[in-house]
């Protein structure tokens, strides 16, 4: 037995030590996105239970609305740390396993609010009997009083982040896999299965969010039906792509996830392939989307109404540092696909006239908004089609110093280049057209004639945008498909350069033949000239020429004088 007498946490059967769920591959559930949802959603309660590892921000959010809150974590050290972070007397911290906790519950001990935003995968200990998801969820349900508000997350083995992880299944998870948590037939792996499984436990799901988390911290929540209803390049899909990229930043991947997110969205299945779901049983959520905003630590919320998303940025002010400033506040964007998708489609179809038309309209739109001083950073991957024109997307930045329309367009086209070429998308431009050539071409299509300075400024701004808007992959490196595609592209390039040499040799051969034709013609002309000179007519002409000279005595005298010795 471990001596737990000096700690200010309660202990039930199954507590783990040494152990922590706070560090390692997955953080406790928490973060501003989750707490924003809880702030909107949680009713006041008398007895609240938080099950599993959650950040102190979540515990605080629950405690703020509950007369008494109990937090159950399996690790003693985690419990102690949480106790230190949450000294409130209204919060009881319990260390132990969920099965041990439930066994200790008496009549009337049930809770009117139960939160398991980390799911039920980290609630049992090594001392628990092997319990599948169904039994763990059943144990959780037993803690809830009749009519209680219950929030429970379910992690998805059919998530794109799982399917495209190039590691074998047994290498994807941490030390908590003392039995294979994921090869579990009872685990629900679709929105419908989650609803059905929870209904079977007496928990009716009022709202189901598709959750995309970054190592345990919620990044983006999209109401599952809205996720199923979005389409590639639409605002919800754009947010999902961004979040999934962030979620997989540390994972070695088989292929880029963005394409698969879009494919799932096209199939109406985006809600089924996110890393997890958060089921809300009880209240109906008021907002469709919660997501990390453009500004650090701020939250973007969104609701879809009549084909347009109403956006609110919870920071309420413009924040940022350096060259780009995140634009907060409220906005409305159409639920349409991005202009980048239109351009990629036109490029893949090698439909340059269509590409030119879109680029032209984009230029008109940018100049119009620049004239009204309402043009910020233009990211084509987050600029929507709005009728005959365009609309800025869900995340907005502006430059710290004033930038002209052509500079912002230059940056937009540089970014488009990076995504077109870096993503190995098909397009009709030859490989010797450099980035500068392509951007110059596209800017020309947008009605701008860029200077070298504008191109350089666009490149610099595009890099700044990438730094704030894109996910930087860590040690996991490049995905396998991109690596293979890069290698194939290099082979193709080598073969094409060899072909180019062959072609140049062919050209030399044509030119050699041309020279031969000309040489033969010159030779024929020389022969003809010799024949003419040797002809009787030419000899007569020569005599006539000499006679003509003799007829000029002064000229003859000068010639004789020149030939005299001593001259």
């Amino acid at each position, binding site marked *: 037995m471990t001596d737990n007498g000096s700690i200010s946490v309660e202990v039930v059967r199954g507590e783990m030590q040494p152990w922590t769920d706070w560090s390692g591959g997955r953080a406790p559930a928490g973060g501003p996105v989750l707490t924003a949802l809880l702030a909107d959603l949680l009713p006041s309660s008398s007895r609240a239970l938080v099950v599993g590892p959650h950040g102190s921000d979540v515990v605080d959010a629950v405690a703020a609305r509950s007369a008494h809150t109990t937090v159950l974590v399996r690790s003693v050290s985690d419990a102690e740390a949480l106790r230190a972070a949450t000294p409130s007397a209204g919060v009881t911290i319990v260390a132990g396993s969920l099965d041990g906790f439930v066994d200790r519950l008496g009549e009337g001990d049930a809770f009117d609010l139960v939160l398991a935003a980390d799911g039920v995968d980290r609630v049992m200990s090594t001392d628990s009997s092997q319990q599948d998801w169904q039994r763990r969820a059943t144990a959780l349900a037993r803690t809830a009083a009749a009519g209680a508000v219950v929030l429970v997350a379910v992690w998805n083995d059919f998530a794109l982040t799982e399917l495209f992880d190039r590691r074998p299944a047994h290498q994807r998870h941490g030390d908590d896999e003392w039995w294979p948590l994921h090869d579990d037939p009872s685990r629900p792996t679709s929105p419908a299965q989650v609803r059905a499984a929870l209904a079977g436990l007496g928990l009716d799901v009022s709202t189901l969010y598709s959750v995309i988390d970054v190592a345990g911290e919620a990044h983006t929540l999209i109401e599952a039906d809205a996720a199923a209803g979005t389409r590639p390049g639409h605002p919800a899909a754009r947010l999902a792509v961004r979040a999934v990229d962030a979620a997989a930043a540390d994972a070695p991947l088989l292929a880029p996830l963005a394409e698969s997110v879009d494919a799932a969205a096209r199939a109406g299945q985006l809600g089924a392939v996110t890393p997890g779901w958060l089921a809300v049983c009880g209240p109906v959520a008021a907002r469709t989307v919660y997501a990390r905003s453009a500004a650090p630590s701020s939250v973007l919320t969104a609701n879809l109404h009549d084909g347009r998303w109403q956006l609110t940025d919870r920071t309420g002010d413009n924040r940022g540092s350096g060259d780009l400033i995140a634009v907060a506040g409220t906005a409305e964007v159409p639920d349409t696909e991005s202009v980048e998708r239109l351009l990629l489609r036109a490029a893949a179809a*090698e439909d340059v006239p269509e590409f030119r038309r879109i680029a032209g309209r984009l230029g008109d739109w940018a100049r119009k908004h620049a004239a009204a001083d309402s043009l910020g950073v233009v990211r084509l991957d987050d600029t929507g089609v709005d009728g005959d024109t365009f609309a800025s997307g869900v995340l907005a930045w502006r430059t710290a110093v004033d930038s002209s329309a052509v500079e912002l367009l230059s940056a937009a086209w540089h970014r488009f280049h990076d995504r077109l070429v870096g993503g190995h998308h098909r397009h009709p*431009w*030859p490989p010797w057209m450099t980035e500068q050539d392509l951007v110059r071409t596209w800017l020309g299509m947008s009605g701008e004639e860029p200077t070298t300075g504008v191109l350089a400024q666009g490149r610099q701004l595009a890099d700044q945008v990438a730094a704030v808007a894109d996910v930087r992959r860590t040690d996991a490196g490049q995905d396998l498909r991109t690596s293979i595609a890069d290698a194939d592209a290099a082979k193709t390039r080598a073969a*094409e350069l060899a072909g180019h040499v062959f072609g*140049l040799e*062919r*050209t030399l051969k044509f030119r050699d033949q041309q020279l031969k034709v*000309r040489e033969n013609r010159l030779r024929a002309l020389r022969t003809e000239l010799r024949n003419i000179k040797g002809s009787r007519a030419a000899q007569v002409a020569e005599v006539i020429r000499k006679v003509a000279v003799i007829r000029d005595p002064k000229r003859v005298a000068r010639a004789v004088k020149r030939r005299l010795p001593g001259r």
Partner: protein
Amino acid sequence: MHHHNHYYGQTHILARHCGLDDEFPPRLRGYLQHGWNVGCGWNPVHEFFDGAWRYVWSDAPRRRGHSLGRRNYHVIGAPWLYLMDLEPELGAVPEEKREGTLWFLFHGWEGGKIQGDHARLIDEIRETEPGPVTFSLYYTEYDRPEVRGFYERAGFEVISFGRRGWNYEGTDRRFLYKQLAAFRRHKRVAANRLSTAVFYGIAAGCEPAVYGDPMVMEGENPLFGGVARVARLWPEMHGKNIDLATARDIADQELGRAWLASPAELRMLFDWNERD
């Protein structure tokens, strides 16, 4: 790069459009389509080398080429349209002064001669054409007295615009200029096969007609389907009186009017810019 690119002085026209020397145009890094066809832009046995770009007039050859496993296409529009833009006045006469028909006999090439019933064709032309007929022969037929004589004896003015050249030699770089000037004084363009010249004529403002014995060419490769396929694809382009608006739409598509590129764009596409 390939000497075919110089045929009819097409590369010369593109060089001029790009503000470059059109007497000795720069080497074009790829293949330039030199005539309208229903294939991938070139004859079925044309040589291609890896990495060369294929510059075609319109999107249909690109699509057909793609289906044949060929890549690296870029549609740029026909040099003819660039020439019309460069020479807006060349040979132009007031519309009411345009008269007669510029008639094109399906032509052979350096490797194949055409065979057909010329007498019967002449009869049909006489029955059809309302005004004077100028008969254009490619030099391969023009230099055959037995062919040229048919049409001269019929009372037609027989002309030839020159040679397209071979291995950069003998290219009449004014070939298309002369053809453009001729179109602009004629009211109609006609041919016994739907062909490049018909589309050129339509673009230059002529009313088109396609009729008469299409004749055959020695060694003609039917891989792309030949005359019958052309008739199936463009039935509205065959006949003695063709709807002009329809013809113009089709000519614009086949010559790639929507694909025309600016000088700056073409210079980058052709790798014609000086590099450091």
